[in-house]
């Protein structure tokens, strides 16, 4: 076990650096959220694919199926809801039927209400409140493996032109993506679960890997808080890269100073 460089009396051993990094993260996030100028985020390529897919569905007269995940109000669901809002806006403007299967987790009872409001507001903003149909947002189940056949049933019956799966999807995503492929639907997914990301990449036409999803959500929503989050995450990634490289160099010179610093 590597020893810490030093310890502070009354302070838990090995947690000081973690606290400092957390304080820095807090400070950076609050700073960026308060800035008038929004940080730059590049447009994620999958967003163009979403527009093309919805356009294809409109031309073919087929509906679009878009889901926002089976998790609670976590990092991925917030991004998924932003993308759902965007898809709802395009569907409202092009008069394309939008189906949003909800459920899959015990916390989806809460997130569903947010999604319904989001889609309703998108239709209202597009000037078509009468075309919003809450029955096109069925709550399938609070259980993952009961939600999956419900979702697949929707795909087989409705044969959508585009299937967009964002938010936090876990093992059921593979079932759904492959079935969407089977009904000749353009499949756009967002991988948040490392275990099935590779399989999703095989089954989907377009995939947003990992943080491309929250970046897409932030880009679409233009919410200062979400964009600040993406910027801070990028900064911390650079800090991590720098630390790793420095540690690599230092370890090769026979010193464990970086290890000891991180253990402080």
């Amino acid at each position, binding site marked *: 076990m590597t020893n810490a460089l030093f310890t502070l009396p009354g302070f838990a051993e090995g947690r000081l650096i973690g606290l400092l990094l957390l304080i820095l993260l807090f400070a950076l996030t609050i700073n960026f959220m308060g800035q008038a100028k929004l940080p730059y985020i590049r447009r994620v390529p999958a967003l163009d694919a979403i527009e093309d897919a919805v356009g294809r569905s409109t031309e073919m007269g087929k509906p679009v199926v878009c889901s926002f995940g089976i998790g609670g109000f976590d990092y991925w669901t917030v991004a998924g809801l932003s993308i759902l809002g965007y898809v709802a806006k395009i569907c409202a403007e092009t008069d394309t039927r939008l189906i949003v299967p909800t459920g899959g987790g015990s916390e989806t009872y809460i997130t569903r209400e*947010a999604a319904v409001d989001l889609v309703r507001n998108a239709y209202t903003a597009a000037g078509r409140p009468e075309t919003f149909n809450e029955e096109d947002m069925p709550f399938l189940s609070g259980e993952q493996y009961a939600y999956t056949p419900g979702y697949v049933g929707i795909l087989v019956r409705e044969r959508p032109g585009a299937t967009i799966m964002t938010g936090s999807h876990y093992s059921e995503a593979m079932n759904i993506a*492959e079935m969407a492929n089977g009904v000749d639907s353009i499949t756009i997914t967002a991988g948040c679960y490392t275990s099935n990301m590779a399989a999703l990449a095989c089954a989907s036409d377009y995939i947003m890997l990992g943080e491309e999803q929250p970046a897409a959500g932030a880009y679409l929503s233009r919410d200062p808080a979400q964009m600040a989050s993406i910027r801070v995450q990028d900064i911390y*990634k650079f800090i991590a890269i720098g630390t790793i490289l420095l540690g690599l160099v230092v370890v090769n010179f026979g010193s464990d100073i970086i290890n000891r610093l991180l253990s402080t």
Partner: protein
Amino acid sequence: MSSFFRSRSVQMTILVVSFLLVFVPYFIPWGPLDWLSGKLMTIAAVTNAFTIVIAVYSQFRRSGRFINQRRKGWVYHIYLLALLAIMTLSGFILGQHGGAYEWLLLAVVTPLSSVIYGMLAFYMSSAGARAFRARSPQAALLLLAGFVVLLYQAPLTGAYFPGIEGAAVYLTDTFGMSVSRMFSISVSIGAIVLGVRMLTGKEVAFLGFGEGEE
């Protein structure tokens, strides 16, 4: 009284105090604070469990509305409520060990969920067989790596060609693990940043508020 607890400022205060009660003892261990933190976590665990009751109540209300209004698929809601009642009552009245509840779990719920999980193997295979095409040099490299790992995963290969373990483990331990670590770091930071947004009141949807609501 309820309007007091439903106000945004009160909910945010509870959120911040709860956060500090768990956050501070992690860095500054102090007996009374540790005790309070433990109690809070126990309360949170119990409260969370009671949300099941709210979920069941919500489902009854929602299904009742569907049945009353004869909306699309209303018959399935009768089926759903009947099953919900049977499982709940059999568990409470007959007990969860032995009897109807355990039988329903073993004979109905578990095979159904096992089937959905088992189907994944077929879907992954067909997706892999379709996607693994050497369309470019990079795809060819990926295909080669995939072959090595797939061959290693077949137990027979390891029996006759033990050397393949080294290659497959190298691929998983370098490329596979580095990607996992990368995502772990990204997701962890993202979760913390989301927490900061919640604590500063920039993200209030989880409290049930829309934009601009108080």
